[in-house]
């Protein structure tokens, strides 16, 4: 799969705008400060992606949403256990440390955060491009990162050895609470031309093709 470095830059910028909106939505929701890193778009094999997020056997909570429409993609939010618990306390207005393990209520709170953030993310991109992006309802998993990530990729129907990841992390801070989260968007590479066309990028004149498989 080839994609030019110009298009990679565009995906990173799109990611920046989308995740920026999502992080702002989270900050409003939790009434807290949220810092985010500049997103990176790269082709990664599964092992690299999992290592980047924290390692195969790390226990995480992951919200998985599918985006259908003009820009089909899978969006994942991955929290470590303490961050997920802190998020639940903040969202439910509870005293810090109230949530130590996640129950049905906790899971549903974390899923709602994924829902709201994805709504802001897809809304920002739809507004900018005029394209249609339709997020699904969220699904959640709480287990080993490797097991969850490989399952999400398989369920997205991606069979290539390397997947295109638009990836960033953000941190919510309130007093001593620190909530780390990874955002990962796995777009369907074959469908990205519609996104590029909507942004006025001409696909046919791809002169500076970079083979991202070798990056």
């Amino acid at each position, binding site marked *: 799969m080839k994609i030019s470095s110009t298009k990679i830059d565009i995906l990173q910028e799109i990611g920046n705008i989308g995740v920026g909106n999502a992080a702002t939505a989270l900050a409003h929701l939790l009434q807290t400060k949220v810092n985010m890193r500049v997103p990176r778009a790269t082709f990664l094999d599964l092992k690299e992606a999992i290592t980047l997020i924290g390692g195969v056997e790390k226990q995480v909570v992951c919200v998985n949403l599918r985006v259908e429409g003009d820009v089909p993609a899978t969006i994942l939010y991955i929290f470590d256990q303490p961050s997920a618990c802190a998020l639940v306390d903040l969202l439910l207005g509870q005293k810090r440390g109230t949530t130590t393990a996640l129950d049905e209520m906790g899971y549903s709170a974390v899923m709602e955060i994924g829902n709201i953030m994805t709504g802001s993310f897809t809304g920002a991109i739809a507004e900018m491009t005029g394209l249609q992006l339709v997020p699904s309802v969220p699904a959640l998993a709480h287990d080993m990162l490797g097991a969850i990530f490989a*399952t999400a990729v398989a*369920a997205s129907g991606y*069979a290539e*050895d390397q997947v295109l990841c638009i990836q960033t992390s953000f941190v919510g801070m309130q007093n001593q609470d620190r909530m780390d989260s990874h955002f990962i968007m796995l777009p369907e590479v074959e469908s990205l031309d519609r996104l590029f066309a909507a942004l006025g990028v001409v696909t046919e004149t791809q002169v500076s093709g970079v083979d991202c498989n070798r990056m």
Partner: protein
Amino acid sequence: MGLEPDVLRGLSVEEARNIHVGIAEYQVARSPHRLLTLGLGSCVGVALYDPVARIGGLAHVMLPDSKQFRSGGKPAKFADLGVAVLVKELQRAGSRNGRMVAKLAGGAQMFFGNNRAMQMAIGERNVEAVRKALKELGIKIAAEDVGGSVGRTISLDTSDGLLTIRTLGQPVRVI
């Protein structure tokens, strides 16, 4: 992928090593080494063992059917190709079909909620596809620890063919 030549030499128990098998990969080793794969979710770990030659093989299969995709990548990614490749690799190391037995682990439903990750039932389809591929090659399944909603880390001991299964928050199982 290729075999690591020294894991096919017979060594003393003290020299037993853990050989890691990554996602969509496979490895073959001779007693006393252990073959290990971490974090099986909807993926299926296919362990083959020849108790006479004491040779084991382990594949980490991710998708049921290679024919559904135009570009695929590594053969061990798919149940339909991966099982056959693993069997061939065991034969090359000196094993015979009639002696091989299989043990399976994984194929879980990791996500709950009503979206595509649920509806795909990818774990279940992986298990079905591995069973089918084994049946076609005439290899019996000796034991299984499949389904459910937990991630699994597994280890095949090539000295006795036992498969150890670790999950978060549950006791270790040996099949």
